[in-house]
């Protein structure tokens, strides 16, 4: 069953068409990658899905309902969470607090209960803490829960961002370059964690990624963007042998060095 259907999405910035008529369907319980050279419009596409940008054309349906035009917090509350390409934690909050913030949409205590700090509030806070600790154990950070987020090593910050996203009980999690800047060891661990998101917690995963080994090993489906347009779609085998994909990548790669 399709959990997310983005149909004919177009987004124009000034004279630049960042995303051009892209259609993408994501099945519930799958792991899907969106790849493409730098500047292909992947992150813009993520920003449209999560409501940071409104699409100029097209519609996004999530869990059967249209979400195009909703605010980012409304979309997050419906169960779509994300991480950011350049980690965006709350640096001066503790690790545990970061996860608790992720749980915001699930905490319902009314203002008066907070002022009175009554039983129902203490119960809710206690449950939230327990659940946050459980999520931190899931990503392996429980022993660092009282550290400030900014004092964590890089790989831990990435994992904390995932724990925070999980705190909202998402159906879908969008990971924007989850292994960027990681060494090979950390990448292997991250790959393992991403797989566990789906296998152990039943979360559908969409990732933007440049590490092709990771993409090929983990994705059930891959979509390729180039200059804002979807140029290919399919499983790893199909993508690897697609001439347009090869052209897009080699063309770019020759321009840089790597």
């Amino acid at each position, binding site marked *: 069953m399709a959990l997310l259907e983005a149909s004919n999405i177009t987004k124009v910035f000034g004279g630049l068409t960042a995303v051009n008529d892209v259609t993408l369907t994501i099945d519930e319980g799958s792991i899907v990658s969106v790849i493409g050279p730098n500047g292909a419009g992947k992150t813009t596409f993520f920003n449209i899905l999560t409501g940071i940008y409104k699409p100029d054309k097209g519609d996004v349906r999530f869990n059967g309902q249209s979400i195009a035009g909703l605010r*980012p*917090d409304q979309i*997050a509350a419906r169960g779509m969470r994300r991480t950011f390409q350049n980690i*965006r934690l709350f640096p001066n909050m*503790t690790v545990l607090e970061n996860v608790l*913030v992720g749980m915001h949409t699930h905490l319902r205590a009314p203002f008066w209960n907070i002022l009175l700090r009554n039983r129902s509030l203490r119960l809710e806070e206690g449950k939230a803490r327990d659940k946050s600790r459980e999520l931190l154990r899931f990503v392996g950070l429980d022993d660092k829960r009282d550290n400030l987020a900014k004092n964590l090593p890089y790989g831990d910050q990435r994992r904390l961002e995932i724990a925070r996203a999980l705190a909202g009980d998402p159906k879908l999690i969008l990971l924007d370059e989850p292994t960027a800047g990681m060494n090979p060891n950390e990448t292997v661990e991250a790959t393992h964690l991403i797989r566990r998101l789906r296998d152990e917690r039943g979360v559908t995963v969409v990732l933007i990624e440049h590490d092709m080994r990771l993409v090929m090993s983990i994705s059930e489906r891959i979509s390729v963007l180039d200059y804002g347009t979807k140029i290919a779609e399919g499983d790893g085998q199909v993508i690897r042998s697609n001439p347009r994909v090869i052209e897009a990548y080699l063309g770019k790669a020759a321009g840089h060095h790597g």
Partner: protein
Amino acid sequence: MAKNPPHTPETGLWNQLNAWMTKGPAGYTFLSLYTLITSALLITNPRTSLFTDIVFVLFLLLILAIYRSRLDMRFKVGLAVVALGFVLPYFGTLNPYYIDVATQAGIFATLAMGLNVVVGFAGLLDLGYVAFYAVGAYLWSIFSTPQIGNMISGATPVGEGWFYLFIIIGLMVGGLFGVLLGLPVLRLRGDYLAIVTLGFGEVIRVLAVNLDKPINITNGAQGIKDIERPPLFFAPALKALGFNLDNNQLYQLFFYFMVLLVVLITMLVVGRLKNSRIGRAWTAIREDETAAIAQGIPLVRMKLMAFAVGASFAGAMGVIFASKQLFINPPTFDLLRSISILSMVILGGLGNIPGVILGAVLVTLLNLQILPRIAEILRTAKEAGLPIPQSFDPTQYQRLLFGLLMILMMIFRPEGILPEDRRRQELHDHDDEPVEGQA
């Protein structure tokens, strides 16, 4: 950016002494003696003097020492009750000047805590905070004096008994004005936000100056006098207990306890909000708006709530202030007042409730007591023939000294005197036992 002091084991003579004095039998003895000696010195030297000033400051710092100590909670609360609930008010009946200083410190502590919700928690720089205080003050001033008759012909002032209700109304009207300020500035950040809030503060003050025509609402620049005071319901009881106090003393005691109560309630409310989903959402917005929205935090609602909560304390305190002063006029609510409250928040420790209260008390003491006293000493020295130029008038230089202190503070301790220490707070959340062996 505020530095986070690392948690190193305590070394050095001062730190060892500090650790030794704040816990165990030494701690109990030290604090008890401290309270006893300063209390005795105050009560035996009630006349306003440099000596009494110093003892008074030491006496107020006792509360900080109690707060920082790691002793049994019941002992700490008991000692604070003795100091603030008995010694200080009794001393106040001997010398009204000092209890007025304490009351003003309490008023500013509440304002600083309210502003801290907006600036410290949610990270929204507000330079017009005093506007909400003005709204509360004018609210009670207009409704409790014949001024109401100028505004609505035939209307008569409400009676003194309405005072308590008006504190609640002041709270709500303050909150409403907070939302009014919040709405246009939702999209603004940093410098732009500061400029607009500064403008808002000035608008309210200018309105207070000019709203004497066509309909006389605020009585313009002349201000409003003969503001109603609350009923002294406890006077007969005190008399029955053998205290023969005049009306002035009774009002002073009343406002002192009233303000103390509001400070305690504000502490409780702000502290609880801080450690809740709402406070965490505010902090998240302060840290990174985009990431906060991505967690499902509704930015508009949370920002408006911060403005409303912060402003409501000022609104309520405005009612009490007007009633205490008997007279208010627009210059009471100028930009300098807003900046002064902001300096208390920053000096004390942005975001940290005890720090902000300490900042408010210290700045109030500096402005009302310490700086004037230094000026007086310099003047006396000049008259005694010290080589100070004739044209140098020390009283003129009080503000300069204050500015200098602020600059030095920001250079050497930018995070404030008592900065927010999330780590320690987290640890304290988990256990009610005093935590041993940590700074």
